């Protein structure tokens, strides 16, 4: 893998919407590999017996969530115009995946710090969301990396989430920023789970869109 460094990393920004939100992370990797092959990009292949285009994703997106500005990294063997890369790759994408931008990577993959989500809570009133944020403690069950269930208090996370609660025709729109880094990750499902546990809460449905992935300084991961 020594020669990996010889090729510069291109960071591709894409959106993943509609039916494409049901492509799991593992499947997205395969889908993108094939797209890159169809676009005939001068991409770097791994060495070894099972050679494949080297693609990496800094922040996997949960199955069922849409994404506005997802990123994928690849390495090119030859220079090419970024605008041409975008055009060629976008032309071979399946429905719901759209290539928006490509540029030489600036941040390192480990720089991902937090992400901004927009939740559409259909059948959930804004008052309920406000109530949740007003609680002094919000206990939730979460599985850690060792796959053990732990009870955690997500109150501190909610306090720094920069939450924006907007009433909609069908319920509430909730925008919030949640940690998404190597030491701490909070999935928006934890927040909706906490909502469901409020007393007298009626059933509601949720659709989630990740609007942006940010670095430590709050800049877009690029």
């Amino acid at each position, binding site marked *: 893998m020594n020669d990996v460094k010889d090729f510069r990393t291109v960071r591709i920004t894409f959106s993943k919407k*509609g*039916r*494409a939100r*049901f*492509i*799991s992370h593992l*499947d*997205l990797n*395969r*889908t993108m*590999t*094939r*797209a*890159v*092959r*169809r676009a005939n990009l001068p991409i770097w*292949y791994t060495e070894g*017996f099972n*050679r*494949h285009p080297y693609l990496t994703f800094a922040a996997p997106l949960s*199955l*069922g969530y849409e994404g506005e500005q997802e990123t994928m990294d690849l390495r090119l063997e030859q220079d090419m115009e970024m605008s041409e890369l975008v055009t060629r790759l976008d032309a*071979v*994408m*399946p*429905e*719901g995946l759209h290539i928006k931008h490509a540029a030489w990577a600036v941040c390192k993959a480990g720089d991902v710090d937090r992400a901004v989500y927009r939740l559409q809570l259909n059948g959930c009133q804004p008052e309920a969301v406000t109530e949740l944020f007003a609680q002094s403690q919000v206990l939730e069950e979460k599985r850690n990396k060792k796959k053990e269930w732990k009870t955690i208090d997500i109150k501190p996370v909610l306090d720094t989430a920069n939450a924006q609660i907007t009433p909609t025709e069908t319920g509430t729109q909730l925008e919030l920023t949640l940690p998404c880094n190597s030491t701490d990750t909070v999935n928006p499902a934890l927040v909706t789970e906490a909502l469901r546990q409020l007393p007298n809460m009626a*059933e509601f*449905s949720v659709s989630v869109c990740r609007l942006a992935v940010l670095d430590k300084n709050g800049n877009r991961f690029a």
Partner: protein
Amino acid sequence: MALMLEELFEKVQKPARYTGGELNSITKDKEKVSVRFAFCFPDLYEVGMSHLGMKILYGATNAVEDFWCERVFAPDTDMETLLRENNLPLFALESRDPLRCFDFIGFTLQYEMCYTTILNMLDLAGLPLHAAERGDDMPLVIAGGPCASNPEPLADFFDIFILGEGEEVNLELMSLYREHKKKGYNKAAFLREAAQIEGIYVPSLYEVTYNEDGTLAAVTPKEDAPATIRKRIIRDLDTAYYPDSFVVPFIDIVHDRAMSEIFRGCIRGCRFCQAGFLYRPVREKSVDTIDRQSRCLCETSGYEEFSLSSLSTSDYTHLEELLTRLLSWAEDKHTNISLPSLRVDGFSEELANRLNVLRRSGLTFAPEAGTQRLRDAINKNLSETEILDTARKAFAGGWTSVKLYFMMGLPTETPDDVVGIAELGQKIVNCYYHNPDKPKGKAVSVSVSVSCFVPKPFTPFQWEPQDSIEQLREKQKLLRDSVTTRKISLSWHDAETSYLEAVLARGDRRLGAVLESAFRHGFNLDAWSEHFDFEKWIEVFKEVGLDPDFYACRRREKDEILPWEHIDIGVTKEFLWAENQKAHQSVTTPNCRQECSHCGASCFKGGVCRERR
């Protein structure tokens, strides 16, 4: 509160099985479409999407501007439960329209164990199971595929069966329907006219009567339907339709790669193999065609692998030339070629290395039987010397494992033949230890996989009884006791599934009641061992009052009218009987390239029957 379809996707395993929207899937403007076809595969998405026939027919139908073919697969149990709870009908992936909106619902019949799944899918679609109960305002339910060669157990449920290869006849049927629709569609009139198209079998136009002993007395056509229905073939594969793109799934499926069909049919004539007779005559594609089609598919799909598809890859007449040509571009594009059904012998070492033949699939043989005598009886021309020579070469090259496939319960099989399986395994083990270059400190592993023989229609063994489950179990025990080394590992298919397969494969129309009752008892996805419950099946037979042994374990007389007697696949009953007699004398028959054995398939005037020998 009833949920919408989209909401169900969030609750099921692998939602991408149901969402549609895959690359190269085809959507059309409903307003501009005159005939809609729902191609149903009665198994899970991962299995159905691996099937080449579906890809060909999907492409061929959609190539006609005003025909629209969509895909439907059996939902897994989690999705089925949600559909039923929310009163949602089974839908097609492209439009998400319920099956009831379609003109045709077409099933492919790949194996007998999916029959209950078909009934379950019809029920999920909200349609009556019986063809007779579906009126002019409902879709026509049709089927094709290998099991349509004896479709009788399903006769009650289907309006039409399509015999043989569907590329042309499907479109002819849909065109006729388009005409009828224009002038005012009436199901009965349409079926009557459809029955006149070669390859179209309308079961309701045939009356079946039985003798007192349960055998068939007669099959009588009505309303000018032909007395026998001949299968269709595509005579020239070079000019035939082949898709230039495949739908590329998001989730991992069983065979997730591009596929190039290199020929249809098989020259061998192994006497147990239904495909070897059904798809006669052998017809090859040219190297140019295969090269062009493979390249096109890889470009439009982005697949990193493609396989050459046929019943016996090694029998392609220009295999070395083909592989050299394919490798010339595939290597540059980092595209792998996979070669299923390949005989490793007779391959140049250089080519074998470039293709990584052994590294991919390991060393695999299908001797099918343990002794040369039985291999002769089933006309499997693989000799012990060939097997041992190839194994020796592979061991010298550093390989340490071999896989062997056998069948148990073949006609004429004796205990010696069963013991012969263990002996052949042992000879391979010995061959490894006699090899002076064997890798130091490594043991050899020979895995022996044994399935149970199922007699099939349109084979020389169509008259033969299947061994009873007890007999098969005894033979399995004998084999287990004959293996004396731990270098050989044994595995087998369970005899119960094979028994039921045998019942359905050679069944008649009366089995429709069994299938319906099985469905009413909730049977579904029986091809999956976790869903299959043999005891319950036996209960169903008792309830309906039919003896499964009558179908599985009974020897038929030469002149007995078989339930598939009115279906003509080209190969004659006389030829099959002669082959049966030769099997009992352990006499082999030369393959189609060595010598014509006058099986009858030359009536199609194509392929090997027209080649110069």
